[in-house]
């Protein structure tokens, strides 16, 4: 589903953010991408979503090489991904509902059906009856749920989340991860970047660890002992 090979990213300012990173994520898998601050998690997230281009190496999404993608094809790739940004990027001058409606409007869903789907997505992330409030009136955890609702409302096959549990207490973080689990269980491929691995119930997840731009693929068993 997602395949990265020998990815290197050097920003114009000089330092290498990623060096020779390769991995595979198969369809329906849930993977944690972890590492210290500045390890390159967000950089990798941006390469997977074609927001940044790698200095070398390439990314395949669904067998499609992102480097070969024409500029005007990028929007159509993005629509297949559910993106949750580290800074959330909520629109604070729009209601909760309008925030979730945006991806549907971009695709061009009929208004009535879009509304129905947006409300369903909000219910699924545990934000029912909040559609008419402004995001500023939501708590941090609720804002994160809103970001998730917006990412999944188009029913993407792949969910990429950058630090979705940052600044949340353990309970809220666990609830967010439970939501991701639920999506994975219905077949969505989920990739979560996070600097602190959460304590999870159930089978231990697969963890990709970045360290100063280089990757180690920790087996599920070794996940607890870095």
């Amino acid at each position, binding site marked *: 589903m997602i395949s990265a090979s020998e990815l290197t990213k050097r920003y114009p300012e000089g330092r290498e953010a990623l060096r020779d990173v390769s991995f595979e994520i198969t369809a329906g898998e849930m993977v944690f991408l972890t590492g210290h601050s500045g390890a390159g998690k967000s950089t990798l997230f941006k390469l997977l979503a074609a*927001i940044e281009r790698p200095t070398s190496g390439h990314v395949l999404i669904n067998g499609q090489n992102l480097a070969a993608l024409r500029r005007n094809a990028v929007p159509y790739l*993005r629509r297949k991904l559910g*993106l949750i940004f580290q800074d959330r990027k909520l*629109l604070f001058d729009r209601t909760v509902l309008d925030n979730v409606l945006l991806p549907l409007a*971009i695709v*061009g869903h*009929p*208004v009535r059906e879009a509304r129905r789907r947006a409300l369903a997505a909000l219910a699924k992330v545990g934000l029912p009856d909040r559609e008419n409030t402004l995001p500023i009136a939501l708590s941090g955890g609720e804002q994160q749920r809103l970001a998730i609702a917006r990412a999944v409302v188009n029913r993407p096959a792949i969910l990429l989340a950058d630090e979705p549990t940052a600044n949340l207490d353990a309970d809220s973080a666990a609830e967010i991860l439970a939501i991701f689990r639920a999506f994975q269980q219905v077949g969505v491929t989920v990739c979560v970047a996070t600097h602190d691995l959460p304590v999870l119930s159930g089978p231990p997840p697969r963890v990709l660890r970045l360290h100063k731009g280089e990757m180690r693929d920790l087996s599920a068993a070794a996940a607890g002992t870095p």
Partner: protein
Amino acid sequence: MKAWIGQHLTALRDALRRLLAAPLNSLLSLLVIGVALTLPTAGWLCLDNLRQATGDSPGVQQISIFMTLDVGKSALSDLESRLKDARAGSWRFVSREEALKHLQASEGMAEIVASLPKNPLPDAFIVTPDDTRPEALESLARTFAAWPDVAHVQLDSAWVRRLDALLRLGKLVVMLLGILFAGALVTITFNTIRLQILAQAAEIELAKLIGATDAWIQRPLHYFGVLQGVLGGLCAALLVTVGFHLLRAPVGELAQLYGANFVLQGLSPLDITALAVVGGGLGWLGASISAAMYLRRVA
């Protein structure tokens, strides 16, 4: 197809919402656009009215052909047949006796005429040409002057020529004004759209990140420009109509004093439509330049 229409309707609604979201700003922009369009429109309308006023006032475009004093009857009939052949229009023969009688009838002229040893007036033809274009009149006058026994040809259209030249100059001025203010309208729209993009930078950036095409991002901006232009055009139509309405009575009175039956013509529904279309088109131009420049910059 239905989805496509839906997308356009959504974009239009979005543009309307943005227009209404800042009513004072929108109103000011509309007024500025309206005033900018008012000047060339009013100028054009004035010219149109002037042309109408001069075009159909009778008795102006006449050519008088004065014969030599000793001309005989045969020469007169010869000239008449020449006029017939030239198909120049209608004419009237004024004999020297008739002219003298006319002169005698004038106030204070009777004694002067009586004191003259003989009739100093020539026979004359007053020609009213069908073709009243200044060039046609000129060439007719030249033709007449070349005929035998013609002493003098007088073209009563010197001032018509002057007016025509003036009208042509006016047309040029109005055209330049039009270009100038069209440029102003494009610039105004360019700037409103630029400010709008600035105000919505976060939304546009996010939309791009989650799969919006450039067309999708530009669409409401284009609609906004068109909407603003159309409303600005209608605003100009309103201003011009009100202005001409105020002028109508005094101009009618003035015309009456000159014995003319002239009514000032305002904008026709077709003119108003054209104004709205032109405003919309220029608005679209300003908006698309602004949007394209922004998207080029962030790409």
